[in-house]
């Protein structure tokens, strides 16, 4: 009998030892593969999008969800090595922003959070703790440098602290030497695989500034460019080729990404072209104030200075209901010599930028109730990307994207078509789990908490948005290189930070 009990005990243990084991466990070698690619040293080159910039800055927890870092976690299933990012250990408040010699660096504030008590985004009310002059002098796998345009990546001195404010505070922190270039530091790691997503800022600073910069198409002297200018497409293509040449010099494979349209990002799509509600009485009053201007247009048209069509386009007319705003448009025929300013009302093709939502409707002169910005006082050029400016940006972007695609083809690289991917957000991008994501700005609802993919700066994705980006890169890599890298579920990544007060 004792033997029987012993036997049963042994049997029991034997059976229990069979923990449920899958026929094909995913931790078994061979489940995932890098195909013809080699992920052992992955280097990501680019701008803020690569750096994990969100909510207006790079901060410690946000950087963890940069798209290259998310990709590297997945590459680890398929031979990926360690992936390093510039250190944010000194970001003790998880707030981003910069100090220079102990003083807050202007233009580099803390991250935006949604202040529930005010119902608006505000920089987190703490002092930045990241000191720009603490030089790390180290090349990292993540070589995304916020603010960089294409040609900046090969610019000696871009990381030289002595070059501030023209040098780049982000790159200063980790440039291996004051005169090192971003691409040199990237290549110094001997990448076996790379992502390259650059060129957004070559058009975006023009766009976010409401088109106040200059389209430098035809001018190849980048040293003459202003911050908000559009880079010449020839310069862009030449630069891009050089970057790809440098990254592929050792035979590395990689993936490049196209540049999205401005109409894919909430910075340009959140404020509607007709944000002014008005009743009939007010409309009549305002129209009366523009009667002289409208009469001047008829005078100009009658004398052949402008077409009847332009006169109609420029006529200011408010009515009961939602109304467009009055703007100054420098692309209109200049009639200022006749005392006729360049005013018109916005149309559905004009894009009011996100910050205009806090400006339109305020009083230009607090003592004068008729000085409503956008109504009695026309909006300046910097508040609106006009239809003409949208086309200028689009033309440059198309040229850049053509260069990206053809250089990729010539070098047998994969292309992640982020332009198309982000455009899907306009109508709704459906992930395989069933969720639908849009390019809407955070609207304060609990649904929006779970689904918003753009950060509070309106330009950059949040962690969830970067997860969508990482997933698209991986999809393209799997397709091009016959790799099998696990995909990314965007829904697990955080969205917006809401604080009760700030």
């Amino acid at each position, binding site marked *: 009998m004792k033997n029987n009990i012993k036997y049963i005990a042994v049997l*029991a243990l034997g*059976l229990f030892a069979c923990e449920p084991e899958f026929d094909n466990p995913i931790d078994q070698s061979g489940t995932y593969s890098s195909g013809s690619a080699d992920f052992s040293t992955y280097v990501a080159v680019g701008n803020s999008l690569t750096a994990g910039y969100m909510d207006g800055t790079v901060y410690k927890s946000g950087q963890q969800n940069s798209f290259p870092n998310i990709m590297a976690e997945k590459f680890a299933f398929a031979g990926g090595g360690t992936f390093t990012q510039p250190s944010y250990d000194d970001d003790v408040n998880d707030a981003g922003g910069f100090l220079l010699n102990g003083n807050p660096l202007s233009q580099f504030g803390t991250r935006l959070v949604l202040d529930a008590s005010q119902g608006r985004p505000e920089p987190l009310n703490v002092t930045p703790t990241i000191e720009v002059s603490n030089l790390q002098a180290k090349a990292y796998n993540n070589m995304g440098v916020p603010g960089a345009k294409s040609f900046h990546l090969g610019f000696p001195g871009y990381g030289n602290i002595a070059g501030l404010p023209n040098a780049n505070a982000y790159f200063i922190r980790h440039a291996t030497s004051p005169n090192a270039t971003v691409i040199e530091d990237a290549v110094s790691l001997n990448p076996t695989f790379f992502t390259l997503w650059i060129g957004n800022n070559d058009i975006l600073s023009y766009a976010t500034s409401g088109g106040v910069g200059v389209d430098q198409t035809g001018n190849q002297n980048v040293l003459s460019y202003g911050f908000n200018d559009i880079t010449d497409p020839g310069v862009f293509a030449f630069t891009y080729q050089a970057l790809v040449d440098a990254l592929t010099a050792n035979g590395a494979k990689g993936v490049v990404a196209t540049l999205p349209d401005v109409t894919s990002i909430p910075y340009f799509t959140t404020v509607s072209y007709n944000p002014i509600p008005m009743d009939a009485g007010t409309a009549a009053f305002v129209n009366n104030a523009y009667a002289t201007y409208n009469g001047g247009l008829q005078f100009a048209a009658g004398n052949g200075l402008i077409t009847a069509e332009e006169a109609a386009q420029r006529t200011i007319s408010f009515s009961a209901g939602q109304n467009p705003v009055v703007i100054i448009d420098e692309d209109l025929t200049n009639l200022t010599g006749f005392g006729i300013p360049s005013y018109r009302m916005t149309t559905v093709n004009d894009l009011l930028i996100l910050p205009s939502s806090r400006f339109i409707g305020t009083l230009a002169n607090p003592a004068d109730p008729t000085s409503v910005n956008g109504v009695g006082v026309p909006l300046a050029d910097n508040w609106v990307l006009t239809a003409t400016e949208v086309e200028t940006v689009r033309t440059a972007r198309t040229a850049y994207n053509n260069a990206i695609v053809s250089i990729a083809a010539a070098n047998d690289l994969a292309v992640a078509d982020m332009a198309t991917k982000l455009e899907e957000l306009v109508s709704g991008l459906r992930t*395989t*789990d*069933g969720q639908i994501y849009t390019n809407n700005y955070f609207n304060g609802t609990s649904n929006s908490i779970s*689904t918003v993919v753009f950060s509070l700066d309106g330009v950059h994705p949040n962690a*969830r948005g970067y997860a969508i980006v990482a997933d698209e890169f991986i999809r393209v890599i799997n397709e091009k290189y016959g790799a099998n890298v696990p995909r990314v579920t965007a*829904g*697990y990544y955080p969205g917006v930070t809401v604080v009760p007060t700030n």
Partner: protein
Amino acid sequence: MKKLLLVLTIAFSASVMYAGGYRVGVQGHKQLAMGHTGVAVVTSAESAFFNPAGLVYLDGKLNVSLGAAVVLSNTSYQNREFGYSAEADNPVGTPFYAYGAYKINDWLSAGIAVYTPYGSRVEWPTDWEGSHLVNNIELSAIFVQPTIAIKISEKLSIGGGPIYVSGAVNFNRNLSRSLTDETGARSNVTIDASGINAWGYSIGAMFRPTEDFNIGFNYRSKIDMNVERGDGTADFENLPAALASGFADGDFTASLPLPAELTFGVAFTPADKWLVAIDYTRTFWDAYEALDVQFYNSAGLSRNPRAYKNASIYKIGAQYEATQKVTVRAGFYFDESPIRDGFFAPETPRPDSVNFTAGFSYNLNSKWAIDASVLYVHSNEVQNSYDYYTEAGQPLSFGGEYKSNALVAGIGVSYKL
């Protein structure tokens, strides 16, 4: 003997059960060893559960069976597309039973049955990929069933009794797939309630056309376990400060049905010393439409459709009296999953299973016997998903491959006077 009783007492105090699903078939070591058949078997007080009508045919004036088991269960999850894997390390469950039957006169027996037929104890790694559905869950229910059996003739008897149930639940899940507090800790809720009471009944009949052939029938009613306001607590943790005021701790209401079960079976003696039993059980799982939890704060109504379907269990078992002292038993049953495709939620990861049982009784003397049994539950790997989690108005799918198994081993005593 005293030592054994002490062990059993300790086991009782940890009255929690195993689950793949939340039905746990460990209601007697004699019958479990025979593939959990028993509706037509008359060997011990275990009949109080399997078929109360059988009590009246037992030998002896007083029959008592006590037992407990340990349940070791595991479920593995993986998702190839995303590279996710997780293993539920479920705490050891300890189902138990205590049956007693007393023959009042030749045609009437009375008894009491205490058993734990439902329960679930599943513990996934905290914050795993399915944590918006469940982190961990513990369900338990103790059934107390006073029973009478009436012999209508030497060939026909009936029996039954009311069932009093005392149940408890503890369930934790994350509030969403991504919400965290300011430090990145996931927002979650634990609902906890115990001492939830409900009533049901069990009835049975037994027909014995010949000495060697029995037919049995048993029906146990559905019992709804309702958590009313004030019965339990809902504890919300790690909310970001901006949302915390909307998610104050409070109470909740919920309802979980313990479904009705109908069993038919036969038992016969093909040869001297042999007994073979075949049972068919239909479980009316369609009562489990949804696990809806109503909170009284911003969390509101949590709707979790389940839409279970009725399912069958096919059981066969045999016993052989090897010696005067030792009876050995073995059995097999096939347990059909009540879960429809697309409703496979990780808090009850229960696919179809094949179940192998074995055991023995050792007669210490004419009164006392020791009963022991083992059960091995094997399920094939399944690829399934739960497609009814709602996030921002959209139904979301969470799926992958699941594989589970369980081992149950237990010991008990029977007493016959």
